[in-house]
């Protein structure tokens, strides 16, 4: 503990240096803007700014990108609450009760509780990150390929189970993402798969163009041409104070959201999105008045907002401790670290303590910056939405193209962005979750490598997945989730009996009564 505090104080020495402070501040502002603007999101924002960091040193670059990430989490709530427009995917749940509160004249309180919840969650979860990452890094040195394989498979199954709607649809999307991740040179044999003569596909289908296409471009395609005369509510400063009852009602949801978000953030998957959904569901389940949800329940704002911010820090745990990205944004952050010559993994904390602890300390600073920045200047950020959409979306399109191109200086990436944009547009029209595609794409090479390495370790025996306790437990949990999630498919398959009059009488009567 003493050692941790010593390390943290040296981290603050780095984080409070003028240059790092400046980049944390710039990251938070850009992140808030990115979060406010619909269709951009943290992923597109980080992708766009990645080339800008090439000229910076590693610490400044990572601090800037992390600032954008958690800044976007804060910013996303603003438009959700005031306009029912989620700035990014993690704010979807905030829309429901946040906007209902706005319609009741409680926009200021909703914004204040979202910001306060985000601040508490952000700060507490950084403590979690600080305490958990170093021992996890040490523990991870014992993980072998079978454990990694089981962990990644479990992550995908948890994501599919947590996603809204049918699990079969989510699993189909995850399988599609994994298949797309098979394009490129096979790391074990050097065989170039599915290239169709395009040399640039050697490194596989890029995460950045795919994510920007699936999320950013598809959003533009869906919303362009739509009448967007939305009324913008800008609360005054004095309206930002929640009532005593609202503080009381949101205290536990913030606590639960922080814990849930941190744990879910660690698990592979878009933790910040899933955690807000899970937190909302948990709060509704625990509430004595679940009927208030959707009508402006403050718990439905405070819980998910705390959860998505906490998940942001949670996502950094496997990234910093294990070198494993838990989602698309950490994957891009990881790529940024590698560009700056940092080898992510269990040895990072030992070999580059100034970077790790400087980064941790900058997150404390960043959370304070965001709290100070967001509430008083909410009116300024919201005014961005007064820009007519007919000018806004061409600008986002141009920025997205520039950002995607600049990562590898390749027009193939621009084509991938356009193609995945079309794919995302069609899938969203047909009500499919697109997040599992990105996660599948990110995890595919790791899953395949750990699967084949495991078999190489066991001389081809599949028993290796069932004889190691951690692997077995994770795979069994995954199987249980799979069966639970697919239960509706099996029960629906039984419906043919009803059609031919074989359904049990009691069940039919029960249906008739409902």
């Amino acid at each position, binding site marked *: 503990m003493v050692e941790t505090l010593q390390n943290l104080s040296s981290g603050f020495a780095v984080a409070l240096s003028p240059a790092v402070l400046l980049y944390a501040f710039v990251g938070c502002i850009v992140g808030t803007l990115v979060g406010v603007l619909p269709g951009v999101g943290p992923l597109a924002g980080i992708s766009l700014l990645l080339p800008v960091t090439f000229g910076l040193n590693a610490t400044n670059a990572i601090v800037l990108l992390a600032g954008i990430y958690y800044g976007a989490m804060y910013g996303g709530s603003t438009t959700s609450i005031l306009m029912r427009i989620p700035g990014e995917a993690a704010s979807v749940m905030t829309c429901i009760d946040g906007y209902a509160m706005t319609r009741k004249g409680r926009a200021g309180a909703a914004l204040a509780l979202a910001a306060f919840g985000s601040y508490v969650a952000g700060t507490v979860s950084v403590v979690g990150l600080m305490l958990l990452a170093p021992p996890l890094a040490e523990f991870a040195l014992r993980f072998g390929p079978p454990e990694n394989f089981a962990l990644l498979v479990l992550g995908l199954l948890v994501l599919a189970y947590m996603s809204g709607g049918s699990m079969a649809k989510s699993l189909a999307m995850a399988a599609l993402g994994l298949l797309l991740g098979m394009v490129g040179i096979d790391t074990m044999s050097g065989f170039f798969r599915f290239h169709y003569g395009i040399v640039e596909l050697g490194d596989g289908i890029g995460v950045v163009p795919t994510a920007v296409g699936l999320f950013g*471009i598809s959003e533009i395609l869906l919303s362009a041409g739509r009448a967007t005369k939305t009324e913008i509510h800008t609360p005054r400063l004095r309206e930002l104070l929640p009532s005593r009852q609202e503080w009381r009602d949101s205290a536990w949801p913030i606590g639960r959201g922080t814990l849930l978000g941190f744990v879910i953030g660690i698990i592979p998957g878009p933790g910040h999105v899933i955690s807000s959904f899970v937190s909302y569901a948990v709060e509704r389940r625990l509430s004595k008045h679940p009927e208030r949800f959707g009508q402006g329940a403050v718990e439905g704002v405070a819980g998910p907002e705390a959860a998505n911010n906490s998940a942001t820090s949670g996502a950094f745990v496997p990234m910093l401790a294990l070198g494993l990205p838990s989602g698309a944004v950490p994957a891009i952050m990881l790529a940024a670290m590698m560009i700056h010559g940092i080898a992510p993994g269990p040895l990072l904390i030992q070999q580059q303590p100034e970077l790790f602890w400087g980064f941790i300390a900058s997150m404390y600073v960043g959370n304070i910056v965001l709290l100070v920045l967001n509430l008083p200047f909410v009116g300024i950020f919201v005014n961005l939405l007064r820009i007519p959409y007919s000018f806004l979306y*061409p600008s986002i399109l141009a920025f997205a193209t520039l950002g995607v191109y600049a990562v590898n200086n390749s027009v193939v990436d*621009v084509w991938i962005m*356009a193609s995945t944009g079309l794919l995302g547009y069609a899938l969203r029209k047909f009500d499919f979750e697109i997040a599992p595609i990105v996660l599948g794409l990110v995890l595919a090479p790791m899953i395949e490598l750990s699967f084949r390495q495991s078999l190489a370790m066991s001389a081809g025996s599949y028993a290796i997945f069932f004889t190691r306790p951690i692997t077995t437990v994770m795979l069994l949990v995954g199987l249980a989730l799979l069966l639970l999630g697919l239960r509706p498919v099996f029960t629906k398959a039984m419906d043919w009996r009803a059609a031919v009059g074989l359904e049990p009488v009691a069940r039919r009567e029960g249906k008739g009564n409902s």
Partner: protein
Amino acid sequence: MTTRRLTADRLAGVVLAAFALVALWESSKLPLGTVEQPGPGTVPLLLALTLLVCSLAVVGGGGAAQPLSALQWTEWRHAVAILGACAFMALALERLGYRLTILVALLALVTLLEKKSLVVGVVFALGFSLGSYFLFNTLLKVPMPQSPFGF
């Protein structure tokens, strides 16, 4: 009979299943190795099979989904034009350079698609292309494609 109608889920499931079959076919051309020592084609083959099974489950469970006719495609003109702009940028970026490509793409979107006046379109497109070039290339030193005409 709701079980026989064509729903959005069923159509999507059929399309995904067709894609899975193509992926199966393509994967089968890769070296598959053995069960004990999988080759580069094994995992893609297994994933294509998984996709096929999931797609069929979507088809099977899709009877209660919204009917295909309920899907609205009112924004299709905009979508086609925006995808056209993306394709143009991909084709032109390294041929015309960043500034000219963005200028043309934005001008077309704003004036032809959004029906803004030519003056407004030119001011916006010119301002954006030059401004973003100055910000990213000149100030932030991000390398950006140049046109053969020297700008």
